[in-house]
């Protein structure tokens, strides 16, 4: 998951000109923009256009139908030209709507910024005031204000602005509150900036896009509301007309001359619709979540699009519990393809624990999540390789079969136990659900089994804990619950994705000890993902080291720790401080891993490798066996004689 998030966040660069192009790429938004531009142009140019006087009455020509001579859209009950009134009315409606939006946005954003940044009493006071305004149903407050100020266009404008202030204030306050807790605000304070300066130069630039989004999505509303007040006779007063009052006047003669009310109604609809289309377009462009595809829904199972020439099953060796061969998984984000996993071979025997070690972005989690199709699609997809579990081809299995295997034969434990347990269901409910999904058990049977499972993972008072919600438990206890859930159906393979990374060190030690003990008791096989060689050494029989989407070295844990063959493994071990060896110099790896969207042709580690030769960069390096159960992806593997450099 983290790897995905990272690649996504890295690829979201972008500037203004791209924004407009994106907006125009959205066909609906572009159409809205054209309609809106035409309407605004007409409204602006109203005094210049060859229109009849909108207020000139002509009793002789009353209620002419549209397309009459001289009156393209007909006339109203007083014989006034509807087209002319429409253009002039749109002018009024737009002016009022836009002014109300600007006023509401300015006042509301100001309140929100101050409340969110100041916090404490100021925040409390301002927001209670806003709550007071929100305690009135939306339009009712506008009515009350108009009742106080008296009917009239300007008063309607104030009323509409006032009732929309809370909307901006709440929105902007939320964002500001989040931003002012960010570390860069503290950093600015320590750089000597005053509060006012921080608010205007640090926070405002980050809030501005939100204000623009909120404005673009509310301006349509404001125009509707103004029209509504005018429709009720509380806004524009005759003879001045806006679209709403035209509709209101037309309503009285709806049955005889429907066109008098339908035409302004359609005009309001077109105006608001085009504004909303453009507003949505602007939101899509400005909201980074939408742009990066963070709001796309992952489907139940990773998409599989094998483009392998060779037959899928030809490469698995068979005989193992779990076999992964030539697995390739990539993320397609926009035009870039991130090759997160670029041909990984793994095998896991019964009662064995295999560790996959690597840094973030190395593809270790994606590899593990690909096995049961839990890589989110979009943007992920499996593009090559084969995965077999007990001789069953998982990539060819049906979705229903995969569902049966998930939590049944293959179970998972994830990193952050607070995020991975459902916050709204009790622990017992969630474990029992895992049981009933795979076993024909009644609810009470499942509940009993859940209690046993909690006892198995050494949780005291299991019967009471079943009724607890995840947030009521400590981090270590939550992870025990996750482990209990993974053990519910006696899985053959347990995939553990950094299960102890989010835990405190003493809790991590307990959970590791527990997992180690349970796997010996239950003879379970574990695929253990981690970035920490200390953790690997605590639990894994064998280890595979990943770098830039490929396995660079694999072998028995003790052998690799004692004599790493790949320079990366060597460096990875040496760059981590080890407890009890404070004098050892940390051998840092200079540079950064290559982005998986742009991998070099040869060995991916060559640019950072101290012993790289020209051949290393020339062509892809294969994983070469180095004895029993040992292999390294290196043309010049380190000799086995160099032991771990002990304390200096």
């Amino acid at each position, binding site marked *: *998951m983290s790897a995905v998030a990272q690649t996504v966040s890295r690829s979201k660069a972008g500037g203004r000109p791209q924004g407009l192009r994106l907006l125009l790429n959205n066909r609906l938004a572009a159409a809205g923009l054209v309609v809106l531009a035409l309407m605004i142009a007409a409204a602006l140019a109203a005094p210049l256009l060859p229109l009849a006087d909108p207020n000139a009455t002509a009793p002789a020509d009353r209620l002419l139908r549209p397309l009459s001579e001289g009156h393209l859209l007909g006339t109203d009950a007083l014989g006034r030209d509807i087209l002319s009134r429409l253009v002039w009315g749109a002018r009024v409606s737009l002016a009022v709507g836009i002014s109300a939006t600007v006023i509401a946005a300015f006042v509301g954003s100001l309140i929100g910024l101050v409340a969110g940044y100041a916090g404490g009493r100021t925040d409390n006071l301002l927001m209670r005031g806003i709550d007071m305004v929100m305690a009135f149903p939306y339009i009712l*407050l506008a009515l009350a204000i108009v009742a*106080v100020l008296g009917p009239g266009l300007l008063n309607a404008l104030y009323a509409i602005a006032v009732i929309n202030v809370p909307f901006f204030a709440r929105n902007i306050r939320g964002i500001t509150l989040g931003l002012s807790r960010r570390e860069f605000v503290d950093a600015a304070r320590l750089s000597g900036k005053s509060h006012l300066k921080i608010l205007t130069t640090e926070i405002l630039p980050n809030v501005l896009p939100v204000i623009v989004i909120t404005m673009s999505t509310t301006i349509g509303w404001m125009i509707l509301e103004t029209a509504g007040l005018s429709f009720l006779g509380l806004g524009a007063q005759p003879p001045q007309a806006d679209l709403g009052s035209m509709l209101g006047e037309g*309503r009285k003669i709806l049955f005889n001359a429907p066109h008098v009310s339908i035409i302004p109604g359609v005009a309001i609809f077109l105006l608001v619709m085009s504004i909303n289309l453009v507003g949505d377009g602007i939101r899509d462009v400005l909201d980074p979540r939408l742009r990066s595809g963070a709001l796309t829904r992952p489907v139940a199972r990773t998409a599989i699009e094998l483009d392998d020439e060779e037959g899928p099953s030809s490469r698995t060796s068979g005989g193992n519990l779990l076999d992964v061969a030539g697995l390739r998984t990539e993320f397609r984000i926009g035009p870039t393809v991130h090759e997160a996993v670029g041909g990984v071979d793994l095998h896991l025997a019964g009662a064995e624990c295999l560790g996959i070690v690597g840094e973030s972005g190395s593809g270790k989690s994606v590899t593990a999540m690909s096995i049961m199709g839990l890589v989110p699609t979009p943007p992920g997809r499996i593009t090559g390789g084969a995965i077999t579990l007990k001789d069953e081809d998982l990539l060819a299995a049906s979705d229903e079969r995969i569902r049966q295997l998930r939590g049944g034969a293959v179970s998972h434990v994830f990193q952050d136990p607070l995020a991975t347990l*459902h916050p*709204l269901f009790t622990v017992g409910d969630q474990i029992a659900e*895992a049981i009933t999904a795979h076993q024909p058990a009644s609810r009470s049977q499942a509940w009993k089994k859940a209690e046993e499972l909690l006892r198995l993972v050494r949780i005291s008072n299991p019967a009471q804990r079943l009724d607890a919600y995840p947030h009521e438990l400590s981090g270590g206890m939550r992870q025990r619950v996750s482990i209990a859930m993974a053990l519910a159906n006696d899985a053959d393979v347990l995939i553990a994705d950094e299960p102890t990374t989010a835990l405190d060190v003493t809790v991590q030690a307990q959970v590791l000890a527990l997992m180690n003990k349970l796997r010996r008791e239950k003879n379970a096989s574990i695929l253990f993902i981690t970035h920490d060689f200390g953790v690997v050494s605590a639990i894994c029989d064998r280890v595979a080291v990943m770098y830039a989407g490929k396995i660079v070295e694999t072998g028995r844990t003790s052998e690799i720790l004692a004599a790493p063959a790949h320079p990366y493994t060597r460096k990875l071990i040496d760059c981590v401080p080890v407890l009890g060896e404070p004098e050892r110099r940390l051998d840092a790896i200079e540079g950064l891993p290559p982005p998986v969207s742009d991998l070099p042709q040869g060995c991916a580690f060559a640019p950072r490798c101290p012993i790289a030769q020209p051949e290393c960069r020339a062509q892809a390096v294969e994983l070469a066996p180095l004895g029993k159960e040992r292999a390294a992806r290196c043309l010049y593997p380190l000799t086995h004689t160099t032991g771990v450099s002990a304390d200096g």
Partner: protein
Amino acid sequence: MAAYTLRRLLAAIPVLFGLTLLVFLMMALIPGDPATAILGSYATPDNVARLNAALGLDKPLPQQYLIWLGNLFQGDLGRSYALNRPVLDEVLERFSATLILAGTSLVICSVLGLLAGIVSAVRQFGWTDRIVTFIVLVGISTPSFFLGLLLILLFAVKLRLFPASGMYAVYGGGDLADLLHHLVLPALTLSVVAAGVVARLTRTSMLEVLRQDYIRTARAKGLTELRVIYRHAFKSALVAVIPVIGIQAGFVLGGAVYIETVFQWPGIGAMLVNAISTRDILLVQGGVLVVAASYVLFNLAADLFQSILDPRLRR
């Protein structure tokens, strides 16, 4: 949970008091005085002063407020001079009609909105999603009073399926079937916009929830996709949608003003519009107060329902 409920109920009291203060001040700020409005512009200054004294309007504002509040507690909201009957009687009668209309609309908009939002999220980028999204956009861009007029033209004038106005038939009727018959068009009109807003929000919340780690856990457990979506994801999404349904209650209560005017529904919205034009200030005051108070109580109920779903909110 009981303690939480009690705490929320207690917290609503200051809000209700604030409401009364705001409503009182608003009406006290109205330029001109009610006495002139009651007696007409030809009244002698003497008469105006006497009536002002009788109404207690010569006292300082805080004292006026306390008197007004005391009367309020006794159920006395004053007399509407235009209708010449107690404000409370008129308001309650009208409010029950509005509740029928707004309540029905709220149910329709919640059900439609939630369904459309879920379907749209589950079929993201599919045809269903596109169609729903477009309909929703049209819905929230249409002025409800215009939509009402169109529906009247189509269903009442052209097709003659439903009555164009009123709550009961003028002759005969008066039973539930008659009421429902009259209710269809206004309730539908009123719920369209609100349903659009609910649908949009449900869609976004569902999409957001479906990306959460605990949804991956649910899938990793081997739950069926139906269970993942309708049990695990929907429950979380609902927690986010409930406050918005609360706000929609405000929209339908307020929107009733238009719809009641268009369909001549004898509710409180239509009453308020008339009262504002006739400057029947006490009636406006009473009407605004009752609607706002009921809205506060409804939102309280929404909060409590939300905390039933989400145990983390009960602290």
